[in-house]
């Protein structure tokens, strides 16, 4: 593994919102993440795309303090996530993929809980919860237990829990999965306004169109490595992001055959 020394941020280069240096993780025999280095500029809307099993979720978990990396460092606005976890976690809002929620709480209670766990005061939590639920079209279901929510509503309530403390960096793993188009548009509006006012958003997805439309930066990850990273224009190099992605990742099979499928 090559370990690049961190480049000290000069006066011309502002501190990136998230800076990953040689992050690596192995599960048993399988190397899930193989030395990922990535700089996410502050104020960017950053997409992380990759095929299934590319290591996206593992990378984001290591970047957010949920999974300890075997090698490498992660800095959030210059704060080392693994040396100073409490300071780093204050700066981040996280929507992890594939974890449960405390789903025997009602939606309102869950978001309130997330706010109180972060040590926020009661009045601020209460007013923000009400606003968040309204903005995410969950106002009518605030009193329903999360266990009775649909998949899309569950995603939205988890997003609300990640937003409650007004973080400077949002890390969202598959935020649009099973969210209906109206809610997805609302969430995109919220995120766009958040980025416009100086926040940074990282989303992982495998919907290329969405990333191309929504993000200004993108990283293509496959096999635990970064294949390409930069602004969306740079990465797609004139082609559509989807074509460029397929070209970078490979693996399309152009087998002939299945002729019988056309014989009926």
């Amino acid at each position, binding site marked *: 593994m090559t370990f690049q020394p961190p480049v000290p941020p000069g006066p011309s280069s502002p501190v990136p919102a998230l800076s990953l240096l040689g992050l690596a993780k192995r599960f048993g025999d399988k190397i899930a993440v193989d030395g990922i280095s990535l700089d996410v500029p502050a104020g960017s809307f950053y997409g992380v795309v990759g095929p299934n099993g590319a290591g996206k979720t593992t990378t984001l978990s290591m970047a*957010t*303090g*949920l*999974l*300890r990396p075997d090698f490498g460092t992660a800095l959030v606005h210059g704060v080392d996530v693994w040396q100073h*976890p*409490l300071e*780093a*976690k*204050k700066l*981040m809002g*996280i929507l*992890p993929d*594939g*974890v*449960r*929620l*405390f*789903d*025997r*709480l*009602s939606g*309102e*209670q869950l978001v*309130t*809980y*997330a706010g*109180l*766990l*972060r*040590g*926020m*005061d*009661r009045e601020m*939590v*209460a007013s923000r*919860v009400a606003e968040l639920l309204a903005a995410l079209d969950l106002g009518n279901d605030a*009193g*329903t*237990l999360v*266990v*009775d929510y*649909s998949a899309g509503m569950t995603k939205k309530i988890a997003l609300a*829990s*990640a937003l409650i403390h007004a973080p400077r960096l949002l890390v969202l793993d598959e935020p649009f999965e099973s969210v209906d188009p109206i809610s997805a548009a609302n969430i995109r509006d919220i995120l766009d306004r958040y980025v416009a006012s100086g926040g940074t958003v990282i989303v992982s997805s495998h919907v290329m169109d969405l990333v191309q439309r929504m993000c200004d930066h993108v990283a293509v990850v496959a096999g635990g490595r970064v294949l390409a990273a930069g602004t969306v224009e740079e990465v797609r190099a004139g082609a559509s992001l989807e074509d460029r992605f397929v070209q970078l990742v490979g693996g399309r099979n152009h087998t002939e055959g299945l002729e019988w499928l056309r014989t009926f």
Partner: protein
Amino acid sequence: MVAHLLRLKLTLLRNSVRRSPWQLVGLGIGALYALGVVGVLAAGLLVLRGQEIELAQTVVVLGGATALLGWAIIPVAVSAADMTLDPARFTTFAVPMPQLLAGLALGGLIGIPGIATSLVALATVGTWSRSLPAAGGAMAGAVLGVLSCVVLSKVVTTATAGLASSRRFKDISAVAFLIPLVLTGPIVAGIARGIAGSGDFLAGLAQTLSWTPAGAAFALGGELAAGNYAAAAVKFLIAVATLAGLGLAWKVLLQRALVTPPYAGTSKRRTGGAGLFRLLPATPSAAVAARSLYYWLRDPRYAGALVVVPLLPVLMLFQGSQSGFYGPFQFVGPLTAFLLAWSISTDVSYDSTAFALHVATGVRGADDRLGRALACLSFALPVVLIFSVGPFFFTGDWEKLPAVLGLALGVLFTGLGLASVISARYTVSVPLPGDSPFKKPPGNVAQTLAVQFGGMAVLMVLVAPEVALVAAQFITGSAVPGWITLVLGPVLGLALFATGVRAGGAWLDRRGPELLAQLAVNR
């Protein structure tokens, strides 16, 4: 097609065993247990061969009716219906209905309950091997009876599938089922006394049941052995009609169920506002306590533990009244203290990956530990006090109260402190959120047992001073050790509680992500 379905069932069974050797161990233990039960029942049925016809008939008919009842109730009550061959999975394959029904019914026999029931039913052929017609009748009765059991079970599970998939029903039935389970001892004792008192009643009941669908099939052998050919013919018709009727009901229900899949989201529970989060102080530890209290109330895995608690004194009082010796009953307070305190040793395991929220928000480990312990303490403390004092109103042995009270408080605080350390460090395999508390949990059984028993051994050591003092009072009869216990128990207990919360919290701060990774293995 029927053979195909049976092969599918066997393949599924084999693959589930192949997934982990512990599955095989579990299956082996279950099989051994079933084999023991089957052996005893079959031996009993063979012994009945030499008894009077009327006695044998009563036992066989009542046993058959009980089996039928069990097949109808148990899968629903414990929400543990065997869904490996869920008919809904065959909707896209256009399997002809008769074949599907036959395959599913025979498939229901593959598995420990099916095989055990079949073996016991076949043993009735031994009971009635007094003449050829009797044995033949018993054989026909056994086949009809066992098939009725399986089909009845399918009818009930299909009919209640919509109900059973609603979360409210699952939550309530899982907890409600605990009550008869805990009270098995008194119930069995009561029934045994009833049987001893009224042998005639049972014979009459069996006689009546044998003319109904519940007992007709298993009555065939006995009627033929007694030479009642006309009665046997009628009962044979009743048994065949029962099976046919059940089959028809199942077919209709299944046809309807296949095109109207159960909808789980009908019974939404609403709660008003932030509730406890508003009532308790706005600090992280109080928020954790509020969250834990909601789980004690709303999660059947926790609520199950709570249902046992009020039954405990009932159980021990019953035992005391049976034997006239109230010794164990005096200690219901310390025992409850242990049960309640120990129940949070699996707290983080119960969270499963929802614990990620605690890691992501960076809540301090000590706040996490303290909140969980305080939630448990908020109801455990009054309950333990009441249970410690209560028994002395029955025994009147008041000079032992200080010792028992001191021991109970010592066990409660020490247990909470130790559990706070254990659940911060070790995960155990527990049923996943939303599963029935009875469902076999995934994961490493050996580690679970090691952690649980190791932890209990450590607890024994930690409360040894209190135990020794209590023993001293009981042996010497002097009241002094009792009063010392009353002081020492809470003081030592609270010191260990504070130590446990701090040590567990430090552990969480250091190793929160590792703990989360362990939890993610079993999700």
